[in-house]
């Protein structure tokens, strides 16, 4: 074990040292940074399946980022990846590719622009990547796995990574108007693909514009507009999506009884339709499935004078047919086609197991990087109240939250209650209740050593009345904890855990390729899934970190000849920021 770690460290750090030397020797017009990671896992089944043996995988990678500044106002950035999978020798299993390419600059000190691979966020109803099912309230549990999944899938904050161009310009105003900003982008989330010699999928384009104004006396406003559209002439497909979305927001910031208050009133709407092309004459001749939807909400955010507490309340309605591809696309793929990388087949029938806690937290391939033109499948075990974030359609209700911070302790509470606006498959409407409670304890053990303990419990209840067939009663619980203790300077022992439990029944929507709800799949949940992790983290320097963990995970299956899957994983990751 010791030798293995040393070997991995050596391989992982060699490029790092080389890159530092190169950087020092180049002029300021050319500079390098990057990232290096060595990742190794060994997975093994426990209990009755031990005969399978352990499966090892991993890679060494170096992402080298050359930055070229031909002029002070222009930068060309590329990310070149060299990746070597474990088990591959040089030339075999080694990939070299350009992972990112971007040109950024400022035109006449006024207009900032980016062309190439860009990370975009607009608003929660137009273009927004919700963290989704991995959200645990504090964000500390399974940090190493989550960082790995995020990095490999270009997950940065709530932004989507896309290829295109973006520009913005800001103006300073006078009198009532203090500042005015315009930001626009054009991207291509999906390029035309050749399906056969004579058939192609069309280019899919997402474009948007945002204007924001800050007025005096705490007033401000934002207007966002985004359009997702297929370009019919770039392909031979019959159906082409068209999805414009508009979101307007007015905010008022003020101080009331020593409390900083921000009131937000917002609303907007969308249209979602398919343009049909007559394959006989290549003309766009009709629209199919055009549906409009609107949303509106009022919320208030409060921060105490000394910032020791903050809270929010809000009311929101989102129409059943509000569709926003940029805001409702999920970061994780729960479709039946999503296949877990580790031990995907279970039971005597070798059935595909469902995506579980372990997969969501650590499987790089389950994550989704693309904008979906239709609503993606959801996983009620993890999130059933707002599976598409604040833009979740067919919801009306209240939400509130409070965060309180004392010297060593931070408390967090949030709750919401929503109801459907339109029943699905029945006139009866679902009601959703969500309660989240969390605590984080960070006592100062000593001046030199730190300790942190975090825990968060999210409970959701979904209910629907009606006939025996229509009734729904689903209760889910997701509990996450994490703790880390600094044993020696820069050496931490850390542990994390997550337990998901579901009891009851729910109907999953089955939608056609065009997003139409045409069937339901009833699921009866009486299931648990869990993952625990224990390990050591060592900061070798400010930029180099090594982690060794032993993970134990499992899930209830209920398939032929196997009721439960139990597995362990040795997880080693060494990363260096260059």
């Amino acid at each position, binding site marked *: 074990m010791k030798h293995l770690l040393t070997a991995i460290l050596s391989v992982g750090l060699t490029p790092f040292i080389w890159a530092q030397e190169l950087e020092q020797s180049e002029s300021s017009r050319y500079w390098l940074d990057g990232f290096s990671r060595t990742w190794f896992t060994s997975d093994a089944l426990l209990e009755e399946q031990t005969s399978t043996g352990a499966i090892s995988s991993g890679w060494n990678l170096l992402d080298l980022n050359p930055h070229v500044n031909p002029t002070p106002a222009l930068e060309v950035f590329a990310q070149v990846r060299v990746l070597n999978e474990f088990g591959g020798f040089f030339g075999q299993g080694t990939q070299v590719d350009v992972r990112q390419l971007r040109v950024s600059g400022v035109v006449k000190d006024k207009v900032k622009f980016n062309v190439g691979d860009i990370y975009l966020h607009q608003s929660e109803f137009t273009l927004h990547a919700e963290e989704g099912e991995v959200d645990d309230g504090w964000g500390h549990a399974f940090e190493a796995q989550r960082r790995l999944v995020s990095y490999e899938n270009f997950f940065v904050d709530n932004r989507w990574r896309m290829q295109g161009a973006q520009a913005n310009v800001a103006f300073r105003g006078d009198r009532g108007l203090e500042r005015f900003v315009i930001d626009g982008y054009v991207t291509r989330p999906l390029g035309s693909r050749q399906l056969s010699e004579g058939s192609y999928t069309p280019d899919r384009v997402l474009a948007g514009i945002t204007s924001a104004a800050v007025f005096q006396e705490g007033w401000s406003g934002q207007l966002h507009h985004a359009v997702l559209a297929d370009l019919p002439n770039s392909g031979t497909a019959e159906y082409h999506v068209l999805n414009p979305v508009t979101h307007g927001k007015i905010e008022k910031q003020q101080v009331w009884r020593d409390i900083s208050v921000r*009131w937000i009133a917002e609303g907007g709407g969308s249209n979602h339709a398919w343009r049909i092309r007559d394959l006989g004459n290549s003309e766009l001749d009709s629209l199919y499935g055009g549906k409009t939807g609107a949303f*509106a909400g009022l919320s208030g955010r409060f921060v105490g004078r000394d910032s020791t507490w903050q809270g929010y309340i809000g009311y929101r309605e989102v*129409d059943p047919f509000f569709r926003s591809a940029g805001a409702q696309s999920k970061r994780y793929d729960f479709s039946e086609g999503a296949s877990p990388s580790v031990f995907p087949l279970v039971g005597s029938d070798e059935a595909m197991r469902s995506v579980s806690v372990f997969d969501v937290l650590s499987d790089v391939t389950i994550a989704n990087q693309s904008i979906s033109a239709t609503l993606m499948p959801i996983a009620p075990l993890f999130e059933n109240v707002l599976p598409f974030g604040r833009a979740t359609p067919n919801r009306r209700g209240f939400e509130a939250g409070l965060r309180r911070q004392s010297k060593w302790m931070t408390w967090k509470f949030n709750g919401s209650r929503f109801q459907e*606006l339109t*029943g*699905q498959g029945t006139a009866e409407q679902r009601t959703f209740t969500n309660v989240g409670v969390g605590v984080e304890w960070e006592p100062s053990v000593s001046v030199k050593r730190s300790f942190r303990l975090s825990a968060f419990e999210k409970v959701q209840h979904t209910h629907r009345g009606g006939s025996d067939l229509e009734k729904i009663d689903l209760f889910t619980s997701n509990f996450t904890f994490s703790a880390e203790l600094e044993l020696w300077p820069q050496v931490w022992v850390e542990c994390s855990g997550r337990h998901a439990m579901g009891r009851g029944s729910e109907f999953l929507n089955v939608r056609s390729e065009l997003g139409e*709800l*045409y069937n339901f799949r009833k699921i009866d949940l009486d299931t648990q899934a869990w993952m625990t992790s224990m390990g050591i983290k060592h900061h070798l320097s400010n930029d180099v970190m090594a982690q060794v963990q032993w993970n134990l995970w499992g899930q209830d299956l209920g398939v032929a000849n196997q009721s439960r899957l139990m597995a362990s994983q040795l997880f080693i990751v060494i990363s260096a920021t260059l």
Partner: protein
Amino acid sequence: MKKTCISLTALTSLTLAIMTSCNRPVTEGPAINDLFGVFEIVDSLQLSNATPDFSIGETVRFSCEFSKPVNWTLSIVGLETGSIKRFEDFSSELLPEQVIWYGNCDDVPFFSEEPCQVILSVEGENEEMVAELVVQGVKVYEGIEVANFEDDIPNGALVWHQDGGNMTFELAQDEPLQGNQYFKMGGRVNWDWSLGYIDIPLDLSDVSTDADAFYLNLGVYGGLSGQFATDQYVNILISESDTPFNDNTSNNAADIFGNDTEVYKHQIRPVDWEGWRFFSVKYSDFEVKSEGGNNVREPAEIRGIRLGLQACPFNSGNCPDNANIEARTDLDYVMFTEGTALLEQE
């Protein structure tokens, strides 16, 4: 504070009022009570015609109604040929204007004049509905005939094969796909991939269909006594070259498939089944073999087709099993169709 609250609340209320005034549907999607309710047959399976004569354009329309939407499968099975035609859908009704049988099949053998059994089954339900019909006349498929091998090989066609063992590049009558004869392509050649081929001259200058809607259809027989050679396949070349078909009689067969001529290629590979199967390939799915022309597939410019048998040669060392087995990919019923594949013709 109070003024701000009132203003923003009024604004939001107004927006919500506008939203509410829009017509929201009461429900979305099919009724759960229907979907998950008790399955019942509301109207039993009905056939519009139990003695269809497809040769004169007659059809059979099917109707049935269930108490809820289900995944249903309607199968028509020829009791003598074993030919099958299937319809599948998710719905609560088989509508006679939608579920129509034109006498075609999903794969060969073709239906003959024979009694057929009609079986309607529903996923998750044990109940099956069965009906019978008798085909009085078989469907006549329309298209541009390339070779049916009934009388002889096509006019002007050239056959070439290697001097291998048990070479059978000839007409045969024992197991035709359609009619009485078919073209046998088989044998053993240990030193070369190509065993032989038949070159057929064509003149399709009257065709106005695009390559996207122009299909080559052919039946392929694979296997010999339950075995088939490793990596055996049918190599299809279509030439649009204006070179005379066979001026040079010293080479192997036709001149229009040379390296400097406009030739497009498709392979049915591997042929790893026993018996007849039927294939339809869009001309636009053919790849460029040699760039002697404009690289645009134009059906009207087609001057000839080569249908060849190729197989992995034993001497290459890559297919040791081929030492003791003869390759075989017989052909029958070769036809171009316009608009749809042959078996999808209505």
